[in-house]
């Protein structure tokens, strides 16, 4: 698998060593894995779910589920990929739950998401519009778009992570791009 520039999903012998330590009872070593994957997985979860509260909940849930199932991690050098699959499932579950309670997108959430210190007013507004448009996509299209264009994974990698065929993924990304373009070019006008 090609080394990704986005999500750190490549094989990692260091991960395997830490997994072995945790499984052997060194619970504290798990903090290394949490620190290693927190930032980029947070970004994915926030973009998928649209607000930090749900994203943190999904991410924490993913870390805990991974920990409890660590003995089932058959390929610990691929811990990152395994953890991401758990997170992706949690995001789907959270998205379904949110859909059921018809939660509306809270405008202020987006502003809270930005870690950068300063943003011009118009750039913040533009980023809000992008996030809003993203949340209007079908969930599977949003997932495919984020993995392809934001996390910059290759289609083969995405297929491996999601279990969806490359052709179907390309179609999802294509439709996501078309929909985003339609939604956001409307805003720009």
């Amino acid at each position, binding site marked *: 698998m090609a080394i990704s520039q986005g999500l750190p999903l490549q094989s990692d012998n260091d991960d395997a060593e830490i997994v072995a330590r945790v*499984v052997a009872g060194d619970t504290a070593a798990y903090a290394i894995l949490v620190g290693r994957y927190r930032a980029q997985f947070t970004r994915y979860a926030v973009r998928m779910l649209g607000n930090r509260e749900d994203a943190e909940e999904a991410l924490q849930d993913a870390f805990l589920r991974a*920990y*409890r199932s660590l003995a089932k991690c058959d390929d610990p050098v691929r811990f990152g990929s395994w953890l991401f699959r*758990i997170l992706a499932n949690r995001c789907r579950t959270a998205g379904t739950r949110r859909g059921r309670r018809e939660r509306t997108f809270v405008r202020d959430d987006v502003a809270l998401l*930005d870690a950068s210190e300063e943003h011009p007013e118009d750039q913040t507004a533009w980023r809000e519009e992008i996030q809003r448009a993203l949340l209007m996509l079908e969930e599977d299209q949003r997932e495919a778009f984020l993995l392809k264009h934001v996390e910059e994974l290759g*289609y083969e990698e995405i297929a491996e992570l999601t279990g969806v065929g490359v052709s179907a993924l390309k179609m999802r990304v294509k439709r996501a791009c078309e929909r985003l373009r339609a939604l*956001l070019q409307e805003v720009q006008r």
Partner: protein
Amino acid sequence: MVHDDDFDPFIAEIARELRAPVSIDARFDERVMAALEPAVIPITVHRSARPWYRRTFNFSVSQVAGLAAAAALVGVVTMKAAKPGAEEAATVAVQQDSAPALQPVADVTRDPSALELQQFLLIAPNATSVSLVGDFSDWDASRFKMERVSDDGAWSITVPLPPGRYEYQFEVDGKLRITDPTRPQTSSDFGSANSVITVEHRD
């Protein structure tokens, strides 16, 4: 045919905006690690400590028979239990120095139809209470309260079970249910699985 290598400056701009880092609660790592504390740790790594292995487990067989009406168990240690209904107490000593560590020294086999005594162990140093829940107890946490048996946080319970396959979890502090990584688990839906144990007759 869909091409994935078409560069679209508009989409690239959107993606660039979405790649901006996002903040997270500064105490996120701390929260995750705190939630791990009552975790299941494979007991094999604690064999050198194993103070509870020295314990002598006393089973009143009449009590065992009462428990058995509703229960069945699986676990780390299986011992032969006396036939249900017998009135004498059986004492089973678990030897510390024999290998493997969790082997009963004295087998109290009395009848081929006997229940099997199954010991369940959990390392949860920070837990204040641990219960064993499973399909053998209708997942009722009040049925099998585990006993803290060592200073390093080992919790134990031994339950008589008829031979069979059982699913179970540990309930920690009355809220968190966790599986046992030392045992096989059901389903592949991470986190929702139960631990599985198969109790067999031992000759």
